[in-house]
């Protein structure tokens, strides 16, 4: 609002003295306009919720804390010396076979985290854990490992993980930073580039582990057409169906997340995998109880949250 509404530019000195009736009226009108405008502005805004705790999220909080407690308790029990059995996961057992095959054929290994994820996703972290093991094996067998990615952050982390894998295996000199590279953030640009690589360089083994979208089948079928052994795993149930059809081994559901503990045999990680099973049993029990309850009392709603 312009200050000319209530300031007489011809007689500025009078502002500090006694104002005339006209000036007083203009000032009051101006103040009224400002006041009404501020009220109007405030009424257009949504009321700000200043509650520190959102009560609507209470069930989520309780369940989260219960899950955290179970995971921490499992870690504590395994620290105390108790051992757990983790079933065999064919897709992870086949990692050795895939690396061995590539070594025998003298062909590279292609490892892709897919296009859909970023480094914040647990799936990408789980994929990095498998990459670490694969890198160690390729370092030992002196097999080339190629990792094209769509995300520069993933590229940076993957370079560190692979470098560490090569160093752990005792062959840091075999690490090639050029083989872990960024291609494009465009979905089909990425798919086309990886497809081109598969067609031209014909990798013996292809790892498709991460978050995939529509590019999943394009990559898997191209790799299948050149006869590469394929190990796949993703958190997308739609793409899982494609992987099951097109790939030799598929990590389904939590198997991808269990890979870290399974491959490293780290007790702390294995215990958290065991906690997943405990949580799954509890969820199963809850579902059974809810079904029985809802059958007996169809009007009940306590189990809906």
């Amino acid at each position: 609002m312009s200050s000319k509404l209530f300031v007489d530019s011809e007689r500025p000195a009078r502002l500090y003295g006694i104002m005339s009736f006209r000036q007083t009226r203009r000032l009051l009108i101006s103040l009224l306009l400002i006041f009404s405008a501020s009220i109007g502005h405030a009424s257009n805004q949504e009321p700000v919720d200043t509650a520190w705790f959102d009560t609507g999220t209470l069930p989520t909080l309780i369940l989260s804390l219960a899950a955290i407690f179970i995971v921490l308790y499992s870690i504590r029990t395994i620290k105390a010396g108790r051992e757990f059995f983790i079933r065999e996961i064919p897709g992870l057992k086949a990692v050795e076979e895939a690396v061995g095959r590539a070594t025998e054929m003298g062909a590279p290994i292609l490892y892709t985290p897919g296009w859909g994820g970023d480094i914040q996703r647990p799936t990408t972290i789980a994929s990095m854990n498998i990459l670490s093991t694969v890198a160690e094996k390729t370092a030992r067998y002196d097999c080339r490992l190629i990792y094209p990615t769509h995300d520069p952050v993933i590229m940076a982390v993957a370079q560190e993980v692979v470098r560490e894998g090569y160093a752990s295996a005792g062959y840091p000199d075999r690490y090639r930073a050029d083989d872990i590279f960024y291609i494009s953030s465009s979905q089909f640009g990425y798919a086309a580039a990886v497809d081109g690589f598969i067609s031209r360089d014909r990798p013996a083994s292809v790892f498709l582990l991460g978050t995939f979208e529509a590019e999943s089948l394009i990559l898997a079928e191209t790799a299948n057409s050149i006869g590469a052994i394929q190990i796949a795993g993703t958190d997308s149930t739609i793409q899982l169906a494609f992987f099951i059809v097109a790939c030799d081994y598929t990590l389904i559901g939590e198997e991808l997340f269990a890979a870290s503990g399974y491959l490293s045999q780290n007790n702390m990680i294995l215990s958290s995998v065991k906690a997943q099973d405990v949580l799954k049993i509890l969820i199963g029990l809850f579902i059974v109880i809810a079904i029985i309850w809802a059958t007996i009392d169809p009007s009940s709603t306590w189990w809906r949250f």
Partner: protein
Amino acid sequence: MQQRLPVLICFVAGILMFLQYFSRHPVARTVFVSINDYWQIIFAFTLLVGVAAFGKSNLRQIGRGIDTPYRFIALSGLVIMPVLAIIGGIKIDSPFQWAFEYMLAPMQATVFSLLAFFVASASYRGFRARNLQAAVLLGAALIVLIGRVPISEMISDSFPKVTFWIQNYPSMSARRGILIGIGLGSMTTALRVILGIERTYLRGE
């Protein structure tokens, strides 16, 4: 110290993001928005690193004479598109938009359209009735495929109903079972990272 500091940062950031989910207070919202903004800034810088690595890698491969034509095309795309955007802007009638609409978009559509052929070849292999389970899968797939097109109602009124039942009960329950596993796996992985048990992303142990 090389690992402790990143683990500590990860722990604090993880706990903050966990706690802000349960609050609607402006401070919690500001924390959430600020962290996301910083993430965008970090990503913008890493994108520069990625593009530089892309250029360096392609130039090195051209020097070695590996896949030279493809790498020239990739590099020319990397240079031409920003130059067009800088010179002519990105308005609807600019050269950049022309290149996007008449070159980039059709190329992307071409790669996407390959999916139709790959679905056909994958389905052919997947639906071979080698054993009882595969035969059940084949039968269910045929019912769903026919039930999803208008001609199914002309064959029988039951087709859409059976299709609906297959998709919403056996298929959905299997999918939800997998989703529960994925959810729990994601949660424990996140917890392992926050608590510093999982450190592969920090160059291992």
